[in-house]
């Protein structure tokens, strides 16, 4: 797929009829969605409905059986896929932070630009310092992950991802492992990003947050998108029984 063919007015992430199975278990049963540049999309749904799997398919951590996923015109479901090109465009933050424990906060942020993008150390350090500032962790540059709280680690992880200068950020339940008090600081960081115009796709159980920042909400259940829409209509006038039941349990 020719990458230069993509322009801003086309979806930055375009998912069409994606099917994904683990062995006999079909987890995604024909998912389609389009995300425009600068949009914030929240994916909600019961446990096991395939939210993580979908997110992971977008940056090729999982492969798919059929359908198409395009990121800025790059077809992800392609044997010839240049993974590096894809990963320069897509940043990912995990539920368990997954920082490199043997590197300090700033080293975690610097590692990929240095090793993968081969940028100059001086340049990278400046970028990293700014990112650390951006996620409000000044003074923690030289702390190791083991010396940081969960919320702080997660913000380092966000900074680490941003250091690759991605166009799309994927967040998979990034606050699920945090104490209620620290959830907020991570959400604030994500909100800052969204307000700066970063395209974000996030799986979350924080309905209040989703309502506040999402441009569009998707509800998935058992591998299909049951219902979707902008927060206002989605929360107030859900039509599907499953959606209603899920919302009534969680809100």
């Amino acid at each position, binding site marked *: 797929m020719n990458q230069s063919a993509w322009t801003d007015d086309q979806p930055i992430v375009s998912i069409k009829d994606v099917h994904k199975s683990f062995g006999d278990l079909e987890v995604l049963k024909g998912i389609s969605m389009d995300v425009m540049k600068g949009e914030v999309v929240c994916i909600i749904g019961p446990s096991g409905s395939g939210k993580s799997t979908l997110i992971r398919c977008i940056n090729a951590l999982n492969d798919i059986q059929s359908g198409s996923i395009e990121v800025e015109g790059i077809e992800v479901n392609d044997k010839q896929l240049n993974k590096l090109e894809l990963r*320069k465009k897509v940043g990912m933050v*995990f539920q368990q932070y*997954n920082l490199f424990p*043997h590197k300090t906060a700033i080293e975690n942020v610097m590692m*990929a630009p240095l090793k*993968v993008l081969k940028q100059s150390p001086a340049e990278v350090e400046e970028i990293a310092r700014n990112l650390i500032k951006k996620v409000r962790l000044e003074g923690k540059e030289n*702390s*190791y992950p*083991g010396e940081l709280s969960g919320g702080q680690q997660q913000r380092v992880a966000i900074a680490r991802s941003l250091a690759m200068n991605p166009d799309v950020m994927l967040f998979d339940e990034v606050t699920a492992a945090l104490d209620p008090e620290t959830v907020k600081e991570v959400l604030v960081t994500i909100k800052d990003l969204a307000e700066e115009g970063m395209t974000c796709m996030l799986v979350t159980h924080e309905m209040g947050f989703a309502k506040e920042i999402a441009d569009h909400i998707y509800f998935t259940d058992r591998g299909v998108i049951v219902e979707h829409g902008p927060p206002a209509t989605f929360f107030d006038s859900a039509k599907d029984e499953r959606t209603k039941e899920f919302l009534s349990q969680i809100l």
Partner: protein
Amino acid sequence: MLEAFMEFFRQLADDYPRWNFIFFHEPRQWARIVKGLQYTLWLSIACVLLSVIIGVVGAWMQNSPSKWVRGIVQGYIQFFRNTPPFVQLLFFYFALGQFTPAVTGPDGWTEIPIISNVGWAIISLSMFAGAFNVEIFRSGIEAVPESTQEAADALGFTRLQTYKDVVLPLAFRVSLPALNNNLVNLVKTTTQAIGIAVPELLYQCVSIWNDYPSALYPTMLLLFVSFIILVGVLVYGMHRWEHKMRIPGYGG
């Protein structure tokens, strides 16, 4: 000063004939010991480095997508772990040594094999200890969470970069105590190079006590003390390293 030192041991040997520290008062014997120590040190350093490299590369190959590569590594480990190292040494030197090419020496008629007995000793001992190192590193690698590697993958690291910059540094830390043990064993096992006439410390000591039976006890004592010091230095170095690599707030 030196003269007094030598005189003391000459006198000791006169007074107590079983305690002839001949290498302390006869420069020729001292030279043998020094040469032996040099060979032992050389064998130890070369084998430690080479066996660690074998361990690192072998553990990487063990995770190869290719069944063949994994099979070869497994075969290598089984062979070298389950046969006596001394037999391996003899096998390398006498069996394989026959097939390695030789070059003609400067005198025009002697044949000098490309790999000397020292070379074979290093190869054989490194392969022996390397087999254990592969297993040691493998268990360290298994302790690195899949999700940490996935994070590197998502950041665009190649498989090799992930191994080199993330997996290995973490696996090393887990592996150090076991590696420590294996390297201590390796240093002690260098003495078996005597079997193919490598002039290391044990070889020199045996020669000395064969020539001068009165030097038997002192030479044995020297052997023990030398190895205690040598292994002590290694263990100290490894501990320092372990300490330096400790990550704040991580692990035990």
